């Protein structure tokens, strides 16, 4: 499989998410970690962009980072899959390479 794009910055702090989505090919996946998690929330300014991206990409969110930030999975955009640390490791091996949008 192609590229796993990793975003660890809040969509309201930097362009990392926007740039990632602009440069991610349709068959690539996106993993939200650390403050990148905030992009997974419903009813926020970035929600529509993420919802649109779900049409072309698998989007994952790292559950421990979600829990750490007090985010209830019910408030997450539908279609985003949760992964734990093992799942994170598996993703990095399932895809040919990872690209971190620092």
């Amino acid at each position: 499989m192609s590229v796993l794009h990793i975003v660890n910055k809040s969509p309201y702090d930097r362009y990392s998410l926007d740039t990632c989505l602009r440069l991610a090919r349709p068959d690539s996946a996106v993993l939200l970690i650390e403050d990148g998690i905030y992009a997974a929330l419903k009813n926020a300014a970035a929600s529509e962009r993420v919802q649109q991206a779900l049409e072309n990409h698998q989007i994952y969110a790292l559950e421990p980072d979600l829990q750490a930030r007090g985010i209830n999975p019910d408030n997450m955009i539908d279609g985003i899959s949760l992964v734990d640390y093992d799942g994170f490791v598996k993703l990095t091996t399932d895809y040919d390479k990872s690209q971190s949008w620092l």
Partner: protein
Amino acid sequence: MATKKFLYINRKAPHGSIYAQESLEVVLIAAAFEQDVSLAFVDDGVYQLMQNQDTAALGSKNFSPTYRALGDYEVNKIYVEQESLELRGLAKDDLMPLVYEDEDDDWAEKDSIHVVSSAELAEIIEQQDVILNF
């Protein structure tokens, strides 16, 4: 040593942090080991290639002229994302000219900078063996 395709993605403005200078140094080291090196300038990274940068009054080292040495190191695939330029009101003319001499074409001087669309850059990212972010 097998040659690998290295892409360095530069997304930070040049003088506010050490990223740009560090990236350039790592690029030159990797190029000295004859790897297949490409550079991409995205987001604020496009500011790294602005013409007429002068850090004399800052009292810090001006590494801006060093980009012009990249051609000597056979680093001649320099991709600048069109969208990032446009968002900042910039065009290719605002960037410093970077050239190389093509050994296979009687040392003709050629342009190293390629302004590419997001879709083109997405393809380039896909073709790499190693991607490094600065």
